[in-house]
C-alpha cells in the first residue's frame, strides 16, 4: 500500500487519543498557574477555564490565595474582572497589588446567606463576564456543585471554590480538586482529582511570602521576651 510512512509516534500525538497515565491535553482551555511544578501535573498545564476547581486548604492562612496569585495577576492585567464572592475577610488591596494583581479589577460580592452565595456564583459563571470567579460557599451540596459546573461550562473563567478539608471525602462534579497543607515550610499540594490519571505524590511549592522565606525557625527574640518590645529598634514608620 503506497502512502506516507506510518509513524506510531505521530499517531500518539493525536489529541483524541488518550493513554492511561498521560494527562488529557485536548479540549478545555486553561490559565497557567505559573508554578511550573504544578502546571506540569495539571491537565492542559493550568487551571481549567470554564470548570470548577475545588481548593481545600487544611487551615486558613497556609497559602491558599498565594497559590492563585500569579494566575489572578495575569488575568487582571489582561483587563478581566475577578469576582470574589462571599470572601471570609477583606481582600487586602496593598498586598494584592504587590502580588501583581490589578486591584481595580477586583469586585467583592457580599451575600446574606449561603443560598445567595451560590446564586451569585452561578450568575457570575453563567454570565461569562469574569476572568475568574472565586467563591467561599459555606455549605454546598452535590446538586449545587453540579449547577455551578454547568453554569461554568463553555465559559472562559476558571472557578475556584474554597471548601473545608472535610469536603475531600465527598464526591464532587468538579474536574479538578486540590487539597492544601503545609510541609517543610512550603505548601503541599495534593491533587485529589484531575482529568487523567490520578496523582499519587503531593507537589511541594515554595509558596511563601518573600519576607518570610527561609525563616523556618523562630528567629525573633520577641517570642521569649515580648515585654521588652520597646527596647528593640523597630522599623519605624512615621506619618
Amino acid at each position, binding site marked *: 500500500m503506497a502512502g506516507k510512512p506510518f509513524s506510531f509516534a505521530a499517531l500518539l500525538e493525536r489529541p483524541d487519543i488518550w493513554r492511561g497515565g498521560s494527562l488529557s491535553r485536548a479540549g478545555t482551555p486553561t490559565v497557567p498557574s505559573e508554578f511550573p511544578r504544578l502546571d506540569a501535573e495539571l491537565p492542559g498545564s493550568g487551571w481549567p477555564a*470554564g470548570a470548577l476547581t475545588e481548593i481545600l486548604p*487544611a*487551615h*486558613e*492562612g*497556609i*497559602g491558599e*490565595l*498565594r497559590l492563585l496569585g500569579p494566575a489572578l495577576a495575569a488575568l487582571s492585567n489582561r483587563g478581566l474582572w475577578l*469576582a470574589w464572592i462571599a470572601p471570609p*475577610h*477583606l*481582600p*487586602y*488591596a*496593598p*498586598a*494584592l*497589588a*504587590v*502580588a501583581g494583581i490589578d*486591584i*481595580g479589577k*477586583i*469586585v*467583592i*460580592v*457580599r*451575600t*446574606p446567606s449561603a443560598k445567595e452565595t451560590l*446564586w*451569585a456564583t452561578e*450568575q457570575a459563571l453563567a*454570565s*461569562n*463576564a*469574569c476572568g475568574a470567579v472565586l467563591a467561599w460557599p459555606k455549605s454546598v451540596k452535590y446538586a449545587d456543585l453540579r449547577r455551578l459546573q454547568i453554569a461554568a461550562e*463553555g*465559559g*472562559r473563567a476558571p472557578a475556584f471554590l474554597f471548601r473545608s478539608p472535610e469536603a475531600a471525602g465527598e464526591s464532587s462534579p468538579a474536574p479538578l480538586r486540590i487539597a492544601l497543607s*503545609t510541609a517543610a515550610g512550603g505548601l503541599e499540594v495534593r491533587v485529589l482529582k484531575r482529568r487523567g490519571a490520578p496523582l499519587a505524590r503531593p507537589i511541594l511549592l515554595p509558596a511563601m*511570602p518573600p*519576607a*518570610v522565606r527561609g*525563616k523556618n525557625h*523562630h*528567629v*525573633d527574640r*520577641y*517570642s*521569649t521576651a*515580648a515585654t521588652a*518590645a520597646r527596647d*528593640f529598634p*523597630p*522599623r*519605624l*514608620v*512615621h*506619618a
Partner: protein
Amino acid sequence: MAVSAALALAPRLSVAPRDPAAETEALLGVAGWAAQFTPGVALEFPDCVLLEVSGSLKLFGGLEPLLELLRRGLKEMGWSTTLAVAPTPRAAFWLALAGKGEFIGSTAELEPALAALPVEIFCRNDETRAALEAIGVRTLGELRALPRDGVARRFGQGLLDELDRGLGRLPDPRIFFVPPARFRAAIELPAEVTQAEALLFAVRRLIVQLSGFLAARSSGVQRFVLRLGHRDRAATEITIGLVALSRDAEHFTLLLRERLSGLALAEPVREVILQADDLVPLSGRNLGLLIEQGKPPGRWESLVERLRARLGADAVRGIASRAEHRPERAGVVADLEAKQMQMDFGERPFWLLDRPRPLAEIDAVPHHDGRLELLVGPERIESGWWDDDEVARDYFVARTQNEALVWIYRERRGEGGWYLHGVFA
C-alpha cells in the same frame, strides 16, 4: 349593534366604553416601537401604523424574517394585530383593515387582490356607501368596472382619487411619525394586582416597547423608572440604575424581576407606568466575522446590575489601596474601579480582618490556635494623631502551630495586648 342587543345574545358580555385617548396613546406607542425597523413610520388614526419597509428588507434578511420580528414584538406587547403588505401604503391599510393578512409583492397582483375588498373598507362617507349599495356595488372590483366619468359625476372625484392612490396611480405622500424625545408608556391593569411578581407580565409589555423605542432612536438609557399606580396612595416608584447604557429588553426584564420579587406592595396596583427620560446615543452592536467558540463573553455591567438588583447596591463593591500607613485605611472597600494609590509597605497579608481580634497572651507569648511564633518584625506603625484615630502598634508576621501565617500586632497604647489583624492566605 346596540348594547342591549349584544347583551341579549351574550349575557356574560362585559361592556366597556371606548377610550379614544388611550387608543391614540397605544397607537403612538406601537409607532415608537416600530420605528426601529424603518425610519418611515406613518400613522393612520385610529388604529393603523404604516411602515415603509422596502428599504429595511436587506437589513432584516427579507420580508418573512421582518414580519416575524413584528409579529413577535406586537404579541409580546399584548396586541392582536393584522399585518398586511402591499406596494402602496393605502392598499396595505385596506388589506389590514379588511382583516386579510395578505402579502402582495408587485403592483400587478395588487388589482386582483383589492377587487375582492368590500367598499366600506375605503369609503368612509356613509351617504356614498349607501348610494353604492343601492346601485349594487359591493366590492372594489365592481366599483372599478363602472365607467370612471360616471362615477366621478355621481360620487365626486374624491372617491376615484382614493382608489387611484390605493392602486399607485396617484402619489400618496405621508407625514412620517417622529418618536418623542422621552419614553413614557402605561398599562391600566384589567384587575387590581396584589402580588408584585404578578406585575411582571404587564411590565414585560412595556419593556418590549421601551427597547424598540430606544432602538428606533439609536439610544440607550442608564436609568428608568417603573411606577406602580395605586387607588388611594401615591405611586410606588422603582428606579433602575444601570452601570452602562443599555436597551436590552431581556436585561431590563431580569433587573425588574429581581426588584419586583423582593417588593412588598402596600396596596394593590391598578396601573403600571414605565418612564425613561434621559436617552443617550448608543451605537449598535458589531457582530464578529468569525464564529467564536464557547459561550460569548457576557457584559460585565449586566452581571453587576443583576447582582445588585438582588443583593443591594452595597453588596457589590471594589477594593482600593490608599496612601495611608494605618493598615485598616491603606486597603479599603471602595467603589468599582476606584482610584488606586499604592505605597511601599513591608509584608502585608492577603486577608485583613474587619476588626482586629484580641489574642490571648500566655507567658508573654501571643496565642492563636496555640502558641504563635514570631517570624518577621517588629514593624512599628505610628500614625493618625491628627484625626482622633491614632494607632501605635508593632506588627509581626507570626506562624501558628498549624503552620499558617498571620499578621499580628502589639498595641503600644493603653493596656497593650496582642491582636490578630490579618492572614497570609
